[in-house]
């Protein structure tokens, strides 16, 4: 049963990390615009133009 000394804190820390990650994402406003986010991934405007290799943005 000594294994519990490791397992339980591990479980709690992992769960807590998940919770912390969620709270952080909430705080940084990632749920403010749920509709827009899925479209933003399709936006390739930040890529450099394939033909011209210079920065003219």
């Amino acid at each position, binding site marked *: 049963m000594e294994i519990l000394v490791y397992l*339980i804190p591990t479980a709690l820390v992992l*769960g807590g990390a*998940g*919770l912390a990650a969620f709270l952080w994402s909430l705080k940084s406003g990632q749920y*403010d*615009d749920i509709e*827009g986010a899925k*479209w933003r991934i399709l*936006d390739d*405007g930040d890529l450099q133009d394939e033909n011209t290799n210079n920065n003219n943005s």
Partner: protein
Amino acid sequence: MSETTRDWDAFITKGDSQNLHMDLAVDGITCAACIYEIERDLEKVDGIERARLNYTSHRLGVEWKQNTTSPDHIVSRLERLGYKVYPFDPAQVKERGDKVGKDILRSLAVSGFASMNIMLLSISVWSGNHSDIDEATRSFFHWLSALIALPTVAYSGRIFFKSAYRAIRQRNLNMDVPISIGVLLATALSLVQTIFHAKHAYFDSAVMLLFFLLAGRYFDHMMRRKTRSFAENLAVLKAESATKIQPDGSLLDVPLSKLQEGDLVIVRPGERISVDGLIVEGVSSVDQSLVTGETKLHEVSVGSPVYAGTMNAQGQLTLEVIKAAQNTLLDQVNKLLETAMEARGKYVQIADKASQLYAPLVHTAALLTLIGWLIFGAGWQHAIIIAISVLIITCPCALGLAIPAVQVVASGLFFDRKILLNSGDAIERLAKVDTIVFDKTGTLTTPDPQLLQEHGLSQQQLIEAARLGLSSSHPLSKAIVRAAYKLNINNTELTPLKQASETAGQGVAANVGEGEIRLGSPKFCGVKSKDLAKIESKYPEASIIAYKQANGTIHLLPVAQSLRSDAQTQVSRLLKRGYDVQLLSGDRASAVEKAAKELAIESYYAQLQPQEKIAYIEKLRGKGKNVLMVGDGLNDAPALAAANVSISPVSAVHLSQAAADAIFLGEPIAPVFDALNISRRAHTIMQQNLWLSGVYNLLSVPVAVAGYVTPLLAALAMSGSSVVVTLNALRLRLSFLSASEPDTTYKLGK
């Protein structure tokens, strides 16, 4: 006269690090590509630090460094891209970051984390109880659970505790009272059990209960928020601002909240008047249809009062802003509205009704259990544990989800059908409606006047008249333009005539090769009074605009408010369902009678004052009818509040929209029928859900009273019933997805 500048200071807030921030509502976003277009374009501007468009709410937040660019520049850039933007008055944007929603979500996350971890420990204990767990390990697990559960209950439960405390202090019972009692008792009992090294602890039930209930709460909140942010956008798109004359004579566009009594305001022809005022300069005619329901233009001159929501048709006006002075229409409406609002709000929501019945019942059952076990010789401690387990298992988890889950699904359906709900319980009240009272002007008819079908122009002539009309801001000219657009099948743009010149208050004229053409008042086009009298008697409810061709032929065009395109079909659908449909209007008798005849509405009343509308609706309610009022005008606002439930079109005046329970968008009036249809179905499902949770309690209470409830059983029963009511709520969506006309062809009884 100098150019108008907007008072930007009123719209800008100072962000952190000296940046300026402004929120704009953007009109014209049709697809996701608009996001990139707008953001990319603005970020090219020097000084703009951040431009972020929220696609969900169609709002743009812009942040820029002080003194680098101006809001005017930003707005004009966006307008060049083809978007209309309107700044938000920071005073009106109540919660930019949705504080309440985030708070619920945080509580939900914490309780989710806690319930998963506690369940991990609980399952070990439950399986250990059947095999070889020793007391020390079990006790250790219980203590660990307590360590997680106690802060969670305190943090995540605070929403319920606060609400329950408020309710008790007001000597009320809402759903949060039994919830709080259940959660607190379960936690306390478990703590005591843990201290005494007992076999059973209910920490998992307490925390899981919070998790499910918070999920329900969050649904509920999201539904309201979606509607509210949409409604806020609408308010801003309506440009709730006015052009104020500064003491130095310059003009400044200011939000309404910055106006004070006595300020001077300019209203140009074709603009909607946004304040109540007295005319101090100028002569014009005003379209008061939104206010009084009357469709004919009203002549106004110096000294006449004008009301917010009316349309200035002809000349430029200077107004002095007044408060609702005594004995004006607005004052009267406000007073009536106040009384009507007080009388209302006594509707008890179905959920609260259920909890008023439920809480005493359950608490009595628990008390009887305690007494019963004591009589049969159980020890104090044992009897109390069993009594508390009755409270835990009957804690209204499913009840807390039963109604919000249905409301969320229903409001999603409403949203799809262009209906925005102002209040959640409107669904329940809509379901009970048996009498529908319509206002005529702006509700059954289109909000803008239309050129009547019998205008007698050829397609070519109409297009030419419309091109001339483009140069005029008069509402009647606009009606001609709309008619031309409707008929223009190729969807080509109409271009204004270059030589057109407008004579304020009279009409527009232009020289086209073969002579002069004119569009405007009959007098402007030289119509003989005999001809005018003839057409006026033919169309008594119409306003007449004249069009003079280059060869001298004059056409008299009747423009009137016509019925919405689907008014006839929708009213007949409602009649067929067995609703009692009535028409109450402030307009003249002839116009009302004509509309009622066309729609086959048997009971109609014309020339009603606001107080008469209220009186009529109260009479109906007195007879035990459940009245739905559909109206848009200022004169309807009190009636909207007095009815059991009310709907307004989006074109309605502000006051009416605020008084209505729901708002529908777009030209067709079909949403009224849809709203009733969906609500009926939703109400049925709500009742089913209440029954389902009732049956669940009926099954579980005897087990609890007999003392056989284990933590495992409590956890299973609780999650099981929650899932069942949620799935049942989703059925509502399914039934409206599959068929355009779902199986709800109900008919009102008797």
